């Protein structure tokens, strides 16, 4: 198929960016979206132009590197996948596709489609862990039974890949889904419950400090999340936060 691409180009954080239009042809429907981007970049290199910068790595939907806003939606029109697993069969010959970076105050732009998501790292550093030493002198793994339902819910919260789609989807650029997923993972397990109060207070404080917006319950994050992280996590975080605040 032949496509028209409208892509955000910006040399670096200090220069002004703009949308540039490109044409690509002979795109196979079996290609992934990023393979289509590879085709474009090869074409640009051939002509002596600069290729489009975008983050990507594992290309199997798990590392969370890829981050494109495609036709206004984080990770494009398909559901339950990151951009790297979006395939061109979701598009038609002759389509025009707009490709932008994830936009949020807390995700400053680095180049073209690459943004800085280190604010997510800092939220995790503020308390997204269990304070145990890694010496191996812990108790036997089976000494504390965990009911399967809690373990499964904790796991589902923990499958967040930290891509930032929730922020990009939110009109307030809120990071509540991301933060609440981590808070939930630990709060649901006996190992994490011990310091749950401190954790939720510190992580929320850091989230606010980074300049993310508030949650107004539109639910766009849950729809766009490539891993289907549930809004229930936000409710749980709010409960945890309230509980910790009044103690």
């Amino acid at each position, binding site marked *: 198929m032949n496509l028209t691409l409208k892509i955000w180009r910006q040399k*670096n954080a200090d220069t002004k960016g703009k949308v540039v239009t490109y044409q690509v042809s002979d795109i196979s429907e079996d*290609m*992934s979206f*990023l*393979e289509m981007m*590879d085709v474009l970049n*090869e074409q*640009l290199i*051939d002509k002596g*132009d*600069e*290729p489009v910068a975008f983050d*990507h*790595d*594992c*290309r*199997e939907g*798990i*590392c*969370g*590197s890829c981050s494109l806003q495609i036709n206004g939606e984080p990770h494009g029109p*398909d559901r*339950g*996948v990151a951009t790297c*697993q979006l*395939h061109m069969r979701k598009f038609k010959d002759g389509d025009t596709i707009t490709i932008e970076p994830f936009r949020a105050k807390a995700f400053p732009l*680095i180049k073209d489609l*690459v943004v*800085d998501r*280190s604010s*997510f*790292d800092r939220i*995790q*550093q503020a308390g*997204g*862990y*269990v304070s*145990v*030493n*890694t*010496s*191996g002198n*812990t*108790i036997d*793994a*089976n000494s504390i*039974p*965990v009911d*399967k339902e809690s*373990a*499964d819910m*904790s796991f589902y919260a*923990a*499958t967040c890949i*930290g891509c930032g789609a929730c922020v990009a989807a939110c009109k307030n650029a809120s990071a509540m889904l991301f933060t609440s997923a981590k808070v939930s*993972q*630990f709060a649901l*397990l006996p*190992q*994490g419950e011990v310091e749950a109060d401190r954790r939720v207070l510190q992580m929320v404080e850091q989230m606010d400090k980074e300049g993310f917006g508030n949650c107004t319950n539109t639910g766009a994050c849950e729809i766009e999340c490539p891993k289907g992280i549930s809004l229930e996590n936000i409710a749980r975080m709010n409960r945890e936060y309230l509980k910790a605040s009044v103690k």
Partner: protein
Amino acid sequence: MGIFESNTPKGPLAEKWTNHKNAIDLVNPANKRNIDVIVVGTGLAGGSAAATLAELGYNVKTFCYQDSPRRAHSIAAQGGINAAKNYQGDGDSIYRLFYDTVKGGDYRSRESNVYRLAQVSGNIIDQCVAQGVPFAREYGGLLDNRSFGGVLVSRTFYAKGQTGQQLLLGAYSAMNRQINRGKIKAYNRHEMLDIVKVDGKARGIIARNLVTGELERHSAHAVVVASGGYGNVFFLSTNAMGSNVTASWKIHKKGAYFANPCFTQIHPTCIPVSGDHQSKLTLMSESLRNDGRIWVPKKKEDAEAIRAGKKKPTELSEEERDYYLERRYPAFGNLVPRDVASRAAKERCDAGFGVNKTGEAVYLDFSSAIMRYGKEAATTQKIDNPSDARIKQLGKQVVEAKYGNLFQMYEKIVDQNPYETPMMIYPAVHYTMGGVWVDYNLQTTIPGCYAIGEANFSDHGANRLGASALMQGLADGYFVLPYTIGDYLSNDIRTGAIPTDSAEFDAAETEVRERLEKLVNNKGTKSVDHFHKILGKIMWNKVGMARNATGLKEAITEIKELREEFWKEVKVPGNTMEMNAELEKAGRVADFLELGELFAKDALHREESCGGHFREEYQTEEGEAMRDDENFMYVAAWEYTGNPADAILHKEDLDYENIQVKTRSYK
């Protein structure tokens, strides 16, 4: 003590590690504060090592090319992690895990290292649970296990198909705790481009800031390389796009021996290549072989009809299917080790029984498992005389709970529903058992430079068993290196901070800068990917699943020529002082073009078939691998002397005192 000594402690196998820990020097907590350690790579090995070293009190700097340590490619490991816990009571033990690993590695790994790995394996699970890793559990609240290839017990712990992700997030959270305490400084979007040696010891690195392009000097008392494997030398592999050999190769060029480069794992269950545009391959976890049955049509006409789209696999009756693994290996069946399963798939496809349009695919079929689980579910739910449709529906639910994310991934990529029609799979490059040579302490032949995780060679011999990579990465990082590195660092308590304004740092930085500038100023006519793809084809066709002397010799010549052409013709747009993905790739591919040649040279010299290394000249009449223990029971450690072709071979003989060396049979 020479630098090329395994330094295996004396004494009985089971006591070596404990005795060694008691004998080695320690650094007292106050002195640790004066010692700096650099860790390159933040996957399971690097992340866990960094966290533990920081917790012990060392000042740690981590480096990764990704934008966050959490994105290292360990994250993509799916199936699980082995540990000799024997929670299932099925006869597992430390010895059995040790035995399975040595046998699985086709008797080409170091006994003492593997035993230690098995000893600490149980601790890993305790540690990860304490960290809040949400492993799969049974209704009773205890941990669940599954089986993997090459073993007869269930010792694999898992978190659905995302075990690597959960374990890495555990290590990352341990890192975060230390970052928060100021004990780790994380340099993300940074790439190590050389090691700096002072008086023969590793004393720092030159790293490029991938956002600004600036070269930075970082000094330390020890450098730990945890940068993963080199599977991307094949261009197409299950590795991440950025996975590379650069850190390992740079230390190799500065004195670290490179061991067994030809030992590479081709994983049997990956989604087949769909066309020339393909940029990477996707793995379907080995855990699927617990329940999936692998087959091709018995009759060639059927295979041809399927390839032409005239027949569907579901139309073939049981009698018309060849479950070739069950046929050839009745004892292990679909759970034979990876190397065996991969070669068997290639054999069937080469013989004309492949089932997709390229002829390079076999089926992985869940219909039997769906019916079996469905019947089980009907029984437990007390459903009388359930219809086949109802059984199928119940069975699908069970399979979805076990493998849902993998099935979804398959459907997104291939556009077929694997609950209704069998998956198509084909082998792909997945893991490299070879790597930087290390001694028992995980130290390379450069004093003060360590290699851990997939980057080293030590534990998997010629073939790695499923779910053992995660185990090794975390064992090295949490439980081995933090002890052994102290023995070396105890000599550095009075050294003080290493200055970065020395002649050694100047020289290393100049060398790195000149190479980067050469790449951007080359102004050739062909892109980096052009060369990478050609290299990948040479490697896959001549140094891949089956190798022979003629092909290997051709490969050596072709790679050398390609490397020369690369330096004449490569075109890298942009400049060095900016974010420049093409420049990053160019540096990595330049290193692959050197490694590839050493890889082929190693494969040519090893005149035997063992594990993932299959030489067509050395096979039985039935097509099984023929090992030559008399002449090749050693680790081939290569010393760099200026050109891959001139590398000098050093041999570390392997002694098996606690295990009887046998022909590996899974029949």
